[in-house]
C-alpha cells in the first residue's frame, strides 16, 4: 500500500478501515520525553518518534489560570475552582467554583473565543497540518462540572436530590466546550478527543440510567458538532465500561480510548462486540507493563493487542492512559518500535 501521512493513517483507522500501518499517538510526560530526547521541544519529540497525531490539551494549552499561592502551587482555574498541583504536576481542584444557587445565578462563563487559548494550536497547525493529525482535546462536561464546579460529593448528591442543578452546570460547560471545539476545528484540528472518566476500576461512577441522563447527552452534542464539521471524535474513559459501552457507541463517537486493561477490559472482546461500529484505541498497559515490564514483555503485549484488535483496521495503538512519569523511557521506545515492526497491513505476527 502507498505510504500514508500520519493524519491520513489516523483518519482511515477512525473510519474503521485498514491504513498502511497501525497508527500511534499518545500523551507524554516531560521526564520521559527528556530521557528519550534531551533538550527537545514537544514538537521535536513528536517528529523524532514520528507520531501520527499530536494532542493539544485544553487544561495545559488553552485554559487560563491565576496564581493564588505560589509557595503551595495553588492556582484558580478559569471556572473559578482552586487547583493544587502535586509533585507530579497534576492539578486537582481543592475548592470549587459553585457553593450555592446564588453563585450559579451570578456566574459568567470564561470566554471561549479568547484568542490566547489558541496560540499553541495555531503553532501546531502551522508546523504539522497535512502531515500529522492535529488532535484538539477537550475535558468532558461531566468532569469539569464535577471537579471544578460543584466538587465530586456535591455533584453526585445533586444527581439524586437536585437534578436541575446538574443540568444547569452541565449546560454552562457544554456551551463553552462546543464553542471551544468549533474554534479549534476552524483553526485546523483534524480530530477531537474528549477525556474524562465515566468509570473506575471496578464500577461506574453513576448508574447506566444516570449515565444516559446526565453524561452521554453532552457527549452526543459534541459528536454532533464535530461531525457537522467533518471531524471524527474519540471518547477517552478509564475504568470498566462494559455496562455503558452501548451508550457511548450510541452517541456516534468514532473512536474509544483506552479500553482500560487495569479495569479488566479486554480489547479482543471489545473488537468482537463493537469493532464494526467503532475504532478501538488502546491498550498497552501503562499501569504495569510499561512501568515494570521488560522490553520483551512490551513487544509481546503490542503483538497481543494487534492479534486481538488490528485485523480489518479500525485500530490505533496507544498506551492504556498516557506515557506518565512512571513509564520506563526504554519501554515506550520499545512500544513504538514494536508498533512499526509488526504494524504494517496486512498484519503478520508469526
Amino acid at each position, binding site marked *: 500500500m502507498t505510504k500514508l501521512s500520519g493524519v491520513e493513517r489516523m483518519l482511515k483507522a477512525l473510519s474503521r478501515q485498514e491504513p498502511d500501518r497501525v497508527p500511534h499517538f499518545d500523551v507524554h510526560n516531560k521526564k520521559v520525553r527528556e530521557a528519550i530526547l534531551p533538550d527537545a521541544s514537544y514538537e521535536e519529540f513528536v517528529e523524532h518518534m514520528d507520531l501520527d497525531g499530536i494532542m493539544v490539551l485544553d487544561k495545559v494549552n488553552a485554559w487560563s489560570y491565576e496564581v493564588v499561592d505560589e509557595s503551595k502551587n495553588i492556582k484558580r482555574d478559569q471556572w473559578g475552582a482552586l487547583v493544587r498541583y*502535586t509533585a507530579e504536576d497534576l492539578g*486537582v481542584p481543592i475548592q470549587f467554583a459553585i457553593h450555592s444557587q446564588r453563585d450559579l445565578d451570578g456566574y459568567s462563563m470564561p470566554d471561549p473565543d479568547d484568542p490566547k487559548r489558541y496560540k499553541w494550536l495555531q503553532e501546531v497547525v502551522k508546523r504539522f497540518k497535512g502531515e500529522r493529525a492535529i488532535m484538539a482535546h477537550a475535558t468532558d462536561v461531566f468532569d469539569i462540572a464535577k471537579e471544578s464546579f460543584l466538587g465530586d*460529593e456535591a455533584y*453526585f448528591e445533586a444527581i439524586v436530590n437536585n437534578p436541575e442543578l446538574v443540568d444547569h452546570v452541565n449546560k454552562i460547560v457544554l456551551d463553552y466546550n462546543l464553542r471551544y471545539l468549533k474554534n479549534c476545528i476552524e483553526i485546523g484540528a483534524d480530530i477531537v478527543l474528549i477525556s474524562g472518566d465515566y468509570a473506575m*476500576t471496578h*464500577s461506574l461512577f*453513576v448508574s447506566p440510567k444516570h449515565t444516559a441522563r446526565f453524561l452521554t447527552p453532552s457527549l452526543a452534542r459534541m459528536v454532533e458538532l464535530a461531525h457537522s464539521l467533518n471531524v471524527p471524535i474519540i471518547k477517552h474513559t478509564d475504568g470498566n465500561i462494559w455496562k455503558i459501552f452501548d451508550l457511548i457507541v450510541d452517541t456516534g463517537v468514532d473512536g474509544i480510548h483506552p479500553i482500560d486493561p487495569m479495569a479488566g477490559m479486554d480489547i479482543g472482546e471489545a473488537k468482537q462486540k463493537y469493532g464494526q461500529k467503532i475504532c478501538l484505541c488502546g491498550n498497552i498497559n501503562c499501569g504495569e507493563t510499561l512501568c515494570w515490564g521488560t522490553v520483551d514483555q512490551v513487544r509481546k503485549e503490542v503483538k497481543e493487542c494487534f492479534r486481538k484488535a488490528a485485523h480489518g483496521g479500525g485500530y490505533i495503538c496507544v498506551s492504556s492512559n498516557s506515557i506518565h*512519569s512512571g513509564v520506563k523511557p526504554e519501554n515506550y521506545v520499545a512500544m513504538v518500535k514494536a508498533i512499526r515492526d509488526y504494524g504494517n497491513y496486512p498484519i503478520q505476527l508469526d
Partner: protein
Amino acid sequence: MVEDVLGNLSVAVVEGDTAQTIATIDVALKEGIQPNDILTMGLFPGIRKVGELFNAGEYYLPELIVSGKTMQAAVNHLNPFIDKKSSQKVGKYVIGTVTGDVHDIGKNIVIMMLRSNGWEVTDLGVDIAPEQFCEAVKAGDFDILGLSALLTTTMHVLDETIKALEDAKLRDRIKIMIGGAPVTQKYADKIGADAYGRDAWEAVTKAEALLPRKS
C-alpha cells in the same frame, strides 16, 4: 411494632431519605425504643444494606453518598440520646491520601462508610508524607491505618510509607489497609499491606475482619 419501626428506619436509610429517617427516629424514641437499639437494629442494618447494594452493582456513588449523608444526619440526631458508656466504638481508624496525591473522594467515602458503621476515624487529609503517617501512628492509639493513592503515579508512595513505618519500628503496632483506583490485591501483597479494599464497602468489611475477635 418495634420491628416495624426499626425496619422502616432501615428502609429510609437505604433510600437516602433524611427527613423520613429523622422522623422515624423520633417515632422510635417516642415509643420507648432504646437509642442504642435504634442505632444497632435500625440504622446499622440500613447502611449495611446500602453497602451490599453498592457491592452488587445496584447502587453507585450518588446513591452511596446520599445514603451516607442520611446516616450521618441520623447519627447526629440520635447522639444526644445515646448512652456513651454502653456504645463503644468498633475500632479506631486513621486514614490519609499519600504524598503527591490530593484526590480525596475515595478516602472521604471510605470515612463516611466507616463512621456509619461505628468506627472512630481520624482523617489526616491529602498529600500526607510517610513521616507524617509515622507521627500519627506513634501519637495515636489506632487499630488500623488506611492509605489511599488514586493515581498510578503515586501508588509507589504506598510502598514507601509502609517502609517508613518499618524503619520507625511502628509497623507491628498497626494493621495497614490500602486502596485507590490503580491499587490491586496483587500490589497489596507485594508491598506487605494487611488488606486491600477495592471499594468503600470492602474497606468496612475487611477492617472488621482485621480486628482481634472478641471472645
